[in-house]
């Protein structure tokens, strides 16, 4: 026990020396499977912090950060939150996923501190699931599903849709919620069938058999899942000779898994920005370059971007509020309506600390090559009652 007590005593001693600095506390997964999502987004947030520091800091003070590992574990997450508070955090950045970030965010909320989920896309990651000072840096899953519905109808003349839902996590259900809300509203459309599976199913042969039993192949298959289950589902769908356009959420962005189905075509993903170097907005490519400089490789998926966006938005709000006080910063954040960022405009209201509409880049994979084909913003934001259903 001695070294333990000693170490914590040191940590306490170390604080006053840095009292002038602003401290951002990262309670994120540095190990376990969430690490793959948290590290890129946290790196992006740190890139923004370095930029701010290089431009003279925030409120004239430098930003520094402290980190604690949630180990992709809910209990450890709560502890990591308390730990960064103990180490003097002024705001908290928590894990990408609602479940693994919330226990830490709740500790921040109890201190009246602003917290941001790195890239959570569940409506609960904010007021509804944590409290009035909690925000997410990403775009709601339902927006992604709705974007897919509206875009495929407008640009690919999709009339018949099939919904294949992976019931394992809430994110997947969010995607399908958005699709189910938007697709039937569109002219001449019909959802011709639905099925469910689980991410770790060893085979989805019987789900595929059901699709093949349809009188006609559907125009689009809305696949609400994530990697690895999604990659495996796509491989099995194509292996069965089904050639429908496959629609997805942002979670399957990234070319790293494409080897799973070589020469894949007709596969579409909505993202906040393109990692493939073809984003129409130069700021996005500038970020990709900065990321490569910082880490030695380009982002593996668009999930790095929300980290940059949230740090950008928070620092602007702090600058406007002139204080780090949680409630004052929240008030400024809620005033943001179409606030420009490198990845498109962002808005918050006093009801929703999340994006229920956003400009998405549509990435289509043809012959195994992903590329931006369009950008699309849904015509109406997803209403709150749909989100909360």
């Amino acid at each position: 026990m001695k070294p333990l007590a000693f170490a914590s005593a040191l940590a306490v001693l170390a604080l006053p020396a840095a009292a002038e600095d602003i401290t951002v506390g990262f309670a994120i997964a540095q190990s376990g499977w969430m690490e793959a999502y948290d590290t890129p987004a946290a790196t992006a947030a740190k890139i923004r912090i370095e930029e701010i520091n290089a431009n003279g800091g925030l409120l004239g003070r430098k930003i520094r950060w402290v980190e604690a590992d949630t180990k992709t574990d809910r209990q450890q997450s709560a502890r990591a939150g308390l730990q960064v508070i103990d180490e003097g955090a002024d705001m908290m950045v928590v894990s990408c996923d609602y479940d693994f970030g919330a226990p830490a965010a709740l500790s921040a909320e109890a201190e009246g501190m602003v917290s941001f989920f790195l890239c959570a896309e569940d409506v609960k990651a904010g007021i509804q699931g944590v409290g009035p000072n909690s925000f997410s840096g990403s775009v709601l899953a339902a927006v992604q599903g709705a974007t897919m519905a509206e875009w495929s109808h407008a640009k690919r003349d999709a009339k018949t849709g099939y919904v294949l839902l992976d019931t394992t996590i809430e994110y997947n259900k969010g995607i399908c919620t958005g699709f189910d809300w938007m697709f039937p509203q569109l002219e001449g459309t019909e959802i011709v069938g639905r099925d469910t599976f689980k991410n770790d199913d060893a085979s989805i042969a019987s789900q595929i058999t059901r699709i093949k039993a349809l009188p006609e192949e559907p125009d689009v298959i809305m696949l609400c899942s994530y990697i690895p289950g999604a990659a495996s589902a796509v491989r099995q769908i194509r292996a069965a000779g089904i050639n429908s356009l496959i629609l997805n959420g942002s979670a399957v962005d990234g070319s790293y898994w494409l080897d799973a189905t070589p020469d894949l075509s007709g596969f579409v993903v909505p993202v906040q920005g393109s990692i493939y170097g073809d984003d129409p907005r130069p700021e996005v490519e500038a970020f990709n370059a900065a990321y490569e400089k910082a880490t030695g490789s380009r982002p593996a998926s668009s999930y790095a971007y929300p980290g940059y966006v949230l740090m950008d938005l928070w620092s602007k709000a702090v600058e406007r509020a002139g204080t780090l006080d949680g409630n004052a910063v929240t008030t400024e954040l809620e005033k943001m309506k179409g606030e420009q960022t490198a990845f498109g405009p962002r808005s918050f209201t006093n009801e929703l600390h999340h994006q229920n509409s956003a400009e998405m880049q549509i990435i289509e994979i043809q012959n195994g090559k992903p590329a931006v084909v369009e950008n699309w913003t849904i015509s109406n934001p997803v209403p709150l009652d749909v989100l909360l259903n």
Partner: protein
Amino acid sequence: MSSQHAQHRLAAYSTPLILSAILLAFVAFVVILGDKALARTAAETLVRVTLVVGLWIFVGNSGVISFGHAGYMAIGAYCSAWLTLKPQSKALFLPDLPPWLMDAQWPVLPAAIASGLLAALVALLSGAAILRLSGIAASIATFAFLAIVNTVYSNWEGVTGATSSVVGLTRYVDHWVALAWAVAAIVAANLYANSASGLALRATREDEVAAKASGIDMYRHRLWSLVISAFFTGISGALLGHSIGVLNPDSFYLGITFISLAMLVVGGIGSLSGAVIGVLLLSLLIELLVRAERGITIGATQFALPSGSQEILIGVAMIFVLILRPAGLTGGREFKLRLTLPRIPLSQEPTSTN
């Protein structure tokens, strides 16, 4: 002879006293350090003590390995959420709850007890079927029970919120609350183990055939111990929920099943002291390793373990303990106050079995 007997009883009843004192000392130590994260670790550890002691009441006495207790935990945790959440948030996230449950807003303590009772009731029903089996078939049936609970709770949209987390649980469980429940569980476990039913059940663990031949109704005693066990397991679930603040069925599945069994087996499945010691030592070791990952300064040198090595090391440590002491750290013995009167070697102590 009767004084001899009374003396044994007294010695047996000293076990919960010693264990409670150890836990109290542990909490006192944490409070003195005054570190928030450490206080939380203490609370979590004590919730786990409640869980593992609850698990022990069934597994330790009957000798049947249960993979199903995380299911009772889930039932307790969600029950407490149903009873304590604000009606408006229930209307929003759990719209299919029956009206009386929707309007309920119980204080936390009665809600915790009700959670335990619901878990106990489910244990009575599920156990009535499962406990007709014995040995590994019973273990598999308990696993099937867990998988059923998990599947149902992961998909029952309007009642459990399915995979969507239930939010807004008051985080009232600090180290004192957790200590109180841990001590309650320990006392109950000790009382049960020394009751007629507990003693009879342990006889069946030693020799099923002989115990049956001597007229012990194994089924009834197993069911009893499962019900009591599920009560405390359900409460530990409620405590866990009110410690994290967010509920998800995923929290009550394989991860917690195995870690709680591992703590029990490493401590020593044959004794209540083993259950408590297993939790304390493994939790302590995990915390030390987590801190070592963050970096520890000893004297002038600073060293840190690489991220993720904690999990590997804890696994290795568990394997070592089991190789060196297959019956667990306590080897199935209880902590007891030794009274000074001479003991007659012939009579075996009721609790020192292995």
